[in-house]
C-alpha cells in the first residue's frame, strides 16, 4: 500500500463519458466520490470499485480506479472476494436500490455481519431506471409505474432501518443536493474501519417522481446534526430511520464508537498463527501418508 499522496479529484475521473441522462443525481454522487477519494489520497490503482447492474452501477467506469461492473445483485460477495484476496486495497461497492435490496437483498445481511472494511454506496432513486421505470423495492406504496399501473400494493424496504437492524457499524444518508455534505459523508464512510453504508437519494430525472427531484431535496433535507442527533446512539438512529420515505434526513445515523476489528484483520491474525504449521509445498500431500 502506497502512502497517501496529494491527489486531486480530477485524478479519479476517467475519460469515459457517462451515459446518464442530463440532470441525473448520479453525476453529483460521482463528484462527491472523486472528492472523497482525493481527500483520502490512495492512488487510483489501489482502489477497486465493484458494482452490479443498473444505471448507477455504471459508475466504476467513470473513475480511473480498477472497476468491476459485474452482474445484477452480486456486487457485495464479489467485493468481499476482492478485499479478502488483497486486504490492502481500498474497496468501494456501488449500485442502485434494486441491485442492492431486491435481487441483492440476500447478500446484505452477510456483508454487514462479516464486517469487512469496505464501503457500500447505494444510489436510491425508488425506481428501476435502466430497464425503463419499473417498481423498485424502495418505491413508495401506491406508486404508479409501468409494472404497477394501478398503484403499488407493497410497502417499501427501508434501507436505513435494514442496515441498522443488521448491526452495520456505519449508516448514513446523503443527497447530491448537499454536495459538501455528501462528499464528506462518503469520505467518512470510507475512513470508517469496517463495513460502512451510505444511502444516497439520487433522483432519476427520466422515470422518477417530481417530488423526488433534487429541487425538492434542497427544500426538504434536514441534517441529523441540526436535530442534535448523536451518531453513537443506535436506538435513536433506528427511530429516526423509521422516517425514511417521509423525511430526508442527511448525515450519519449511526457510527459504532467502538468498531470491532474488521474481518480481514481477523483473518490476518489467523494466517500469522497458522503459517507456523505450513508444510513445504511438495509435502502438502503427506498429510495423507499412511505410516
Amino acid at each position, binding site marked *: 500500500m502506497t502512502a497517501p499522496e496529494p491527489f*486531486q479529484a480530477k485524478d479519479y475521473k476517467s475519460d469515459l*463519458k457517462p451515459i446518464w*441522462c442530463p*440532470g441525473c443525481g448520479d453525476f453529483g454522487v460521482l463528484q462527491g466520490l472523486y472528492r472523497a477519494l482525493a481527500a483520502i489520497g490512495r492512488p487510483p490503482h489501489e482502489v477497486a470499485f465493484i458494482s452490479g447492474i443498473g444505471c448507477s452501477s455504471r459508475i466504476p467506469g467513470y473513475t480511473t480506479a480498477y472497476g468491476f461492473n459485474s452482474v445484477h445483485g452480486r456486487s457485495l460477495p464479489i467485493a468481499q472476494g476482492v478485499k479478502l484476496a488483497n486486504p490492502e486495497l481500498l474497496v468501494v461497492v456501488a449500485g442502485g436500490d434494486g441491485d442492492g435490496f431486491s435481487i441483492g437483498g440476500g447478500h446484505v445481511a452477510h456483508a454487514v455481519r462479516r464486517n469487512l472494511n469496505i464501503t457500500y454506496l447505494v444510489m436510491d432513486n425508488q425506481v428501476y431506471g435502466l430497464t425503463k421505470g419499473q417498481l423498485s423495492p424502495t418505491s413508495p406504496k401506491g406508486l404508479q409505474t409501468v409494472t404497477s399501473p394501478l398503484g403499488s400494493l407493497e410497502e417499501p424496504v427501508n434501507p436505513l432501518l435494514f442496515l441498522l437492524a443488521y448491526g452495520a457499524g456505519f449508516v448514513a444518508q446523503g443527497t447530491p443536493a448537499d*454536495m459538501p455534505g455528501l462528499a464528506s459523508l462518503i469520505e467518512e464512510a470510507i475512513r470508517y474501519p469496517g463495513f460502512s453504508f451510505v444511502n444516497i437519494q439520487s433522483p432519476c430525472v*427520466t*422515470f422518477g417522481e417530481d417530488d423526488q427531484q433534487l*429541487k425538492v431535496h434542497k427544500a426538504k433535507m434536514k441534517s441529523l446534526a441540526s436535530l442534535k442527533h448523536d451518531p453513537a446512539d443506535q436506538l435513536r438512529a433506528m427511530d429516526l430511520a423509521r422516517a425514511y420515505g417521509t423525511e430526508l434526513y442527511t448525515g450519519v445515523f449511526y457510527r459504532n464508537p467502538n468498531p470491532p476489528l474488521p474481518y480481514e484483520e481477523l483473518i490476518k491474525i489467523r494466517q500469522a498463527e497458522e503459517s507456523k504449521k505450513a508444510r513445504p509445498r511438495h509435502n502438502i500431500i503427506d498429510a495423507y501418508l499412511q505410516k
Partner: protein
Amino acid sequence: MTQQTQGIDFATLSLRDALDLAVLIEEEARDRYEELAAQLVLHRTPAAAHFFTKMMRVEEIHRKELAEQRARLFGTQPSTVRREQLFDVEAPDYDAVRMNMSHRAALLTALKSEVKAHHFFTEALRHVGSVEVRKLFEELCDEEIEHQKLVKAELDKLPPPTRFEEDDFSDDEPVAQ
C-alpha cells in the same frame, strides 16, 4: 444558498490566494460547461450543447486572464487553494440540465450561474480583510454583472417562449438497457 466554499477564511485571504480562488472558480465553471455540453451532445440536445460549449470557451478566457494576472504578480509560487474547496461557485448545477432543454433554458442556466457567482463575491466581500482582495472581488463582482447583461442580451434575441416544452415534441421513447 448552499455552501459554496469550504475552509476558506476570507478575513485573512491573501491576494495571491484570492487570485488562485478566482482562477479555480472559472476553471470549475469551464469544466462543468464542458461536461454538460458533452452530456447534451450524447443526448441529442444540440442547441443547448452548442451554447454550453460557447460558455466553456468564455469561462476559459476569464480563467486565462486571471491566471495571467496571477502569474505576473506571483510567478510560480505554489498555490494553497485547492479545487476541492469549491462547490459549484460559478459552475451550473448538474441538476440544471435536461435532455431536450431549449436554447432559452440553457441561457437561463448560465444566467443563474452568473447570479450565483455574483452573490458569492458579494457575500465574500462582507468578510474580506485585505484591501487588494477587496478591490479584486469588487472587479469580479462587476464582471459578473457584465456577463449577466450579455446573457440577457442573448435571451432577448430569442423568439418569445412558446406554450410548449421542448419535451412535448420529443417522440423518442426511452430505451431499456
